[in-house]
């Protein structure tokens, strides 16, 4: 779909805004202004660096009892995958995960087996509302093509009412984890604030709210991602980005030899 066809009757303010955004070199918006793909690319750039290390805390709240917290250290490259290692709690400390295209591997050095265990990408990651496929996601534009829906005013819990572009990202590959993702992206800077995840059957089953926008060096992005499951009622997972740093991660990290080193 062409970019012009994706936007129906653009309003004057929007056209001005998009023209201005196109001139923002810091945003790196090199594609045609107003293009749905441009916005999706901007979301990718906001959420994912080309190559980075990060530290993330995951809090899982479900019906089984009090919230439980895990802390991970991660290394990611857009063109390769994601490596994670659990830092806390002590029960699972040292467990490692390697997400490569199409597969996720888990290795627990304390388990005694020398082989990494293959996990299915569709299963929940450590009992959270994130799937194994979500964990290694390094950009949406690989698996989804976007169209723009009518703009909306998002009632954001932290920011109040925020004018947003609404992006419908539809799966373009069989390996995409979701049938469709609807994204609310702040008009002023293309900052993603909400995502709704639909199954391939069309069922809405997860929603992620992004908040606490902060700077990590040159990168400004939401630091808190709260994912609520409509499929598993009462299950909410909150990811808090403690740190993220652009760094050239060695290619050898993204190989099973590194997992069992």
């Amino acid at each position, binding site marked *: 779909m062409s970019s012009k066809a994706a936007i129906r009757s653009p309003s004057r303010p929007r056209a001005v805004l998009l023209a201005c955004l196109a001139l923002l070199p810091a945003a790196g918006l090199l594609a045609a202004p107003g293009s749905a793909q441009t916005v999706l690319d901007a979301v990718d750039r906001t959420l994912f660096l080309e190559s980075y290390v990060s530290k993330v805390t995951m809090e*899982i709240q*479900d*019906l*089984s*009892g*009090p919230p*439980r917290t895990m802390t991970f250290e991660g290394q990611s490259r857009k063109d*390769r*995958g994601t490596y994670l290692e659990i830092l806390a*709690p*002590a*029960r699972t*400390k*040292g467990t490692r995960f390697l997400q*490569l*295209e*199409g*597969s996720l591997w888990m290795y627990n*050095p*304390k*388990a*005694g*087996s*020398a*082989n*990494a*265990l*293959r996990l*299915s*990408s*569709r*299963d*929940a990651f*450590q*009992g959270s509302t994130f799937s194994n496929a979500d964990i290694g996601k390094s950009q949406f534009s690989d698996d989804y093509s976007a169209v723009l829906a009518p703009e909306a005013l998002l009632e954001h819990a932290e920011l109040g009412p925020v004018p947003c572009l609404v992006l419908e990202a539809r799966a373009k590959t069989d*390996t995409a984890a979701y049938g469709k993702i609807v994204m609310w992206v702040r008009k002023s800077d293309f900052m993603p604030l909400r995502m709704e995840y639909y199954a391939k059957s069309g069922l809405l089953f997860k929603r992620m709210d992004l908040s606490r926008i902060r700077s990590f060096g040159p990168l400004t992005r939401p630091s808190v991602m709260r994912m609520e499951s409509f499929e*598993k*009622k*009462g*299950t909410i997972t909150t990811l808090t980005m403690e740190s993220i740093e652009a760094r050239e991660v*060695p*290619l*050898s990290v*993204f*190989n*099973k*030899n*590194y997992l*069992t*080193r």
Partner: protein
Amino acid sequence: MSSRNLLPVAALALSLLCGPLGAEGGPVYSLSADAQAGFVLAGGGVEGAFDPTSASTALAWVLGGDLLHRVEAPGWGFVLSQAFDLAGNAESANPSLPPTDLLVPRFKIYEAYARLDLGDRGQLFFGKRRLGLGLGTTFAPGDLLDPRSGFWDQKNGFRGLGLTASLGSDLALRAALGLDRNLEAYAAGLRAKASASLPAKVAAEAAYSSLLGQAGGPADPRLFVWALSADWQADIAQLAAAAVYAPDRFARPSLGLSLDLDGLIVQAEGAADFGADPATLSPDLFGTAGLRTTFSGEADSLTLSLDYAYNGAAGLLLHRHYLLPSLMYSRPEVLDLTVRTLVELEAPSALLSTVLAFHPAPDFDLEFTGSFCLGASGGEFAALPSPPTPATTPAATALGLCARVHF
């Protein structure tokens, strides 16, 4: 070298290598540890049912833990994985057994190795290390370098050298040289020199000859075990090829395939053991085939798996046909239940292992364990293959309770 001798060396190495811990770009040390205390009761041999009050039922205390030390630095790393046991010899209900040496620490080293990174493409390993060849989720039929030490027990590791090469994300190559038998020969020679009345050289040669079948020394290449493996993956498929070779003893190539069919993991692996004669036309065959899937509920998950194993020659397993059903139920931070069964199909008997772990507090577990032999008294699993206590009679049932703290 015994475990006790290795420990001070390893501790010194750790302290020297780490230097200013956490310094920018310097070595970083981490420790992951568990401590556990409890007991195991074992009894109920082929003669009768399990009775905790019977004189033949033995009690073993569990008091110990596991330590995993790790040093990571740019370009190199060091790992020391060890278990310690403070329970000493098990205390038995039978008063005629020798006294215990409770609280005398005993150490077992699973892994103690150094790693050197070879640029961004490979790694070199020295020391004792676990290595998995092939798919091997239950049994890796091609793995003779570091085979499982029990049906569900952890691997013991092998002593020697390892080399890995990483070709992109899809291809992982590994090579290893096992020196366990060389080190055993060296130790046998030392013992012979120290104890024999013969001249030291003659005594050592006799010891080597006894170990090798003919004259030789600890560096005899016939004691080497060589292994090569390639692990390739593309999208939903994983292919694992391996070969293990020991001169005059065995040559065993293997091939395995794993597929992720929308959440159903299907895998199969086969190996052919050509024994001492690689040209033989009738190798012993081994194989496994199975599937595994996970169902996720609102706050829990259930993983079911079923594997078939074909055992072409007696070894760890005595017969040919086995089934391995298993179940894992998890309610995170509440409880975990694991039930594993090894069923021998020819003279039906089975080994059933259960672990029920409650998590009443963060990093604290209360664990109930049970091992049961089921089936005919003449079957392969009429008694527990690795009794957890020094029972005087074979035990067919073992029940345990253990409290575990994670650090």
